[in-house]
C-alpha cells in the first residue's frame, strides 16, 4: 500500500533580518491511507509549520514531499493551488466560513469557484456532506446563524467536498467549548473510519491526540516519537 503522504528530510529555516531560525530539522513523515494521525508538540516545536508545508501553503527550505504518489514540492505556485483544491482538505482552528453564504454554499465553494458556479451535482454532494456531519436541518441557514460547533462541522464538510486524499486540520477544536469539541472529534473519527479519509491533525491537546490512531510528537524541529494508539482506533 503506497503512502498518502511521504515527506522526507523536511527542513525549514526562517530569516528575520540577519537572524536565522531553524524551525524544522530534517523531518521524515509518512501517512498511510485511512490514518487519523495527531501531530503533537509544544508551542514552537514546528508542528504548524510542518502542517503548512505538507499542505503546500509553505515551501520547505529542503526536503521532498510526495502526496498520493505525486511529487509536489517542485510544483509552481499555480500548480500548488490546483493541487490543494483537488487533492487536499483543510480545517483550521477558526472556521472562516463565508458569512454571506448558506451552509450548503460554503461546503460547495471549493468546487464551485474553479467551475464558475454551483452545479446541481455540487449542491447535491454538499447537502450529502452536511447530512453526514449532522446538519440536515441547517443546510440553507446562512453561516452567521450557525453555532460555533455547527460552523466547524460545516468546515469539515467543506474540507471533504472535493474528495481529498489528505485532510489537514490545525487545532480544529481550539476555538470550541468541550462539548462541541467532542462532537467535532467524533465526527472526524467517524468520517475517517467510515469513509477512509486520511487526517493529519495538528494539536497540542493530549485529549485530541488520544482520539487518533497515531501520535507523532515533534520537539525542537525534529520528530521525537511516533506511536500507534490502538485505543484511538477502537474509539474509546
Amino acid at each position, binding site marked *: 500500500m503506497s503512502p498518502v503522504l511521504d515527506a522526507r528530510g523536511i527542513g525549514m529555516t526562517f530569516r528575520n533580518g540577519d537572524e536565522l531560525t531553524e524551525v524544522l530539522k530534517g523531518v521524515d513523515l509518512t501517512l498511510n491511507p485511512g490514518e487519523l494521525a495527531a501531530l503533537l508538540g509544544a508551542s514552537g516545536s514546528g508542528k504548524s509549520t510542518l502542517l*503548512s508545508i505538507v*499542505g503546500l*501553503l*509553505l515551501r520547505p527550505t529542503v526536503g521532498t514531499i510526495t502526496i498520493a504518489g505525486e511529487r509536489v514540492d517542485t510544483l509552481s505556485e*499555480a500548480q*500548488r*493551488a*490546483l*493541487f*490543494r*483544491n*483537488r487533492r*487536499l482538505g*483543510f480545517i*483550521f482552528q*477558526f472556521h*472562516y466560513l*463565508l*458569512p*454571506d*453564504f448558506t451552509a450548503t454554499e460554503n461546503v460547495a*465553494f*471549493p468546487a*464551485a*469557484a*474553479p*467551475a*464558475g*458556479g*454551483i452545479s446541481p451535482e455540487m449542491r447535491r454532494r454538499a447537502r450529502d456532506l452536511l447530512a453526514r456531519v449532522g446538519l440536515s436541518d441547517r443546510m440553507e441557514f446562512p453561516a452567521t446563524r450557525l453555532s460555533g460547533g455547527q460552523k466547524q462541522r460545516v468546515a469539515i464538510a*467543506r474540507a471533504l467536498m472535493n474528495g481529498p486524499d489528505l485532510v489537514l486540520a490545525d487545532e480544529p477544536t481550539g476555538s470550541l467549548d468541550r462539548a462541541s469539541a467532542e462532537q467535532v472529534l467524533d465526527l472526524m473519527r467517524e468520517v475517517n473510519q467510515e469513509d477512509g479519509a486520511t487526517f493529519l491533525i495538528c494539536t497540542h491537546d493530549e485529549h485530541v491526540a488520544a482520539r487518533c490512531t497515531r501520535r507523532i510528537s515533534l520537539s525542537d524541529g525534529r520528530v521525537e516519537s511516533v506511536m500507534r494508539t490502538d485505543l484511538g482506533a477502537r474509539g474509546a
Partner: protein
Amino acid sequence: MFAFTVARRYLFSNPSQTALLIAGVALGVTAFVFITALIQGLAIRLTDDVTANSAHVSLEPVTRVARVLPSADVDVESVAIVSTFQRRQIRAWASTVELLRSQPSVSAISPQISGSAFLVKGEAVAPVAVSAIDPSGLDAISPISTEIVSGDASLGADGILIGVRLAENLGLSAGQPVLFRTDRGVDRLLTVRGIFQTGLQSLDERVAYLSLQTARPLFLLPEGVTNIEVKLVDPARAREFAAFLTEATGLRATSWQEKNANLEGALAAQARTGTLIQIFSLISVLIGIASALSLSANRRRGEIGIMRAFGVSKRFIAGVFVLQGLLIGVVGAGIGCLSGFALCSWLATLTEPDGMMVLPIAPSEGGYVAVFLLTTLGAILASVIPARSAARLDPLEAIQQ
C-alpha cells in the same frame, strides 16, 4: 459566473455601507453632470447672444494695399496709389447673393451698405454705425422689427430706425426728424420711424438702420454694396463656410468666431476650468471606491485566506473585487446621471423676473454617456489596487491572523 455572485453577496452583506458608497459615487457624477451642463449652457447662451443679433459670416471686398509696379526699362520704381476716398464696394453683389441662395447651409442673406455717420439734433451730435438694408429683409440678421418699442419698423424713403439708448442720448422719439450727416459730409433730414431695444448696448447706442435706397446717395454708392451679411443654419460651421466663400467669391469672408476671438478664448478657458472640476470630482469618486474596497479586502482577509488555502485562483479573488468596483460604478453612475439630469432640469425651470434663467444650464448637455463610461471604467481601475492586494494575500498569513 460565480465571482459575480460572490461580488454581489459581498456588496449586499453590508447594505448601508454599500448604499453610502454608491451615494458617494452618484454625488460625484451629479456634480460632474451639473458642471458640464452649466458650462455647456453658458457657452450656448453666450454664443446665442452673439450670433442671434449679428451675422455668422460677413463678406467684404478685400483690403486694397499700395503695391510696387515692376519696371523693366527705367531705373526707378513705380507705386500704385490706392485711393482712400473711394468707398470699397462689392459691385457684382447680385451674383454673390445668387451663389449664397444656392447653399442649403445658408438661412438668411442681407446685402448692406455699412458706413459711419452722425446724427445731429440741435446741438447734440452722436456718431452711429449705419446698416442700410433691403426693408423686406430687415429681420434677416437681427430681429429688429420684434424689438421695436416705439413707432414701427417701416423704413420708407426717408426713415431711420435707432436704438433706445441713442434716442435717449439725443432726446429723440418716434416721428421726429433728425439730421443725418455721412462721413463724406452729405446731409439729409430723416425721420425716426421706430426705436428698438435689443438689450445689447452696442446695438442700442450705436447702430442705425436705413433702407438701401435711402443710403445709396448718402454714401455715394449708386450700384454696389459694402458688405453681405449671412446667417447659417448651424452657426458653429461659420468658420469653414467662411473659408469656402473666400475661395468661391474672392471676397474677404469673416466668421463670427473670428470677429469674437475674445469670446472664443473665454469659452475655451471656461471649458478648461470645467474639465479640471470634472477631473477632480471623478478622482474623488475613484478614491472613495478604492478605499472602500481596500477596507473590504482587509476585513475579509480570513475569508480570502481560506479561499486561497482551498486553491481558489488569484484571478477569481481579484475578479470578485473588480466586479464589486464595476457594480458600484455602474449603479452609482446610473443614479448620478439620473439625479444630475433631474437637478439640471429643475434648475432650468428657475427664472428671473425678466424671464432669464437663473442659471444658464443645458440639461441635455450633461455629458451623460461620457461620465457613465468614465465612472464605470474608473471604478474598475480603482478596484484593481484592492483586487491585486487581495489576490496576493498569503493564505497562511491571513489564516494565522
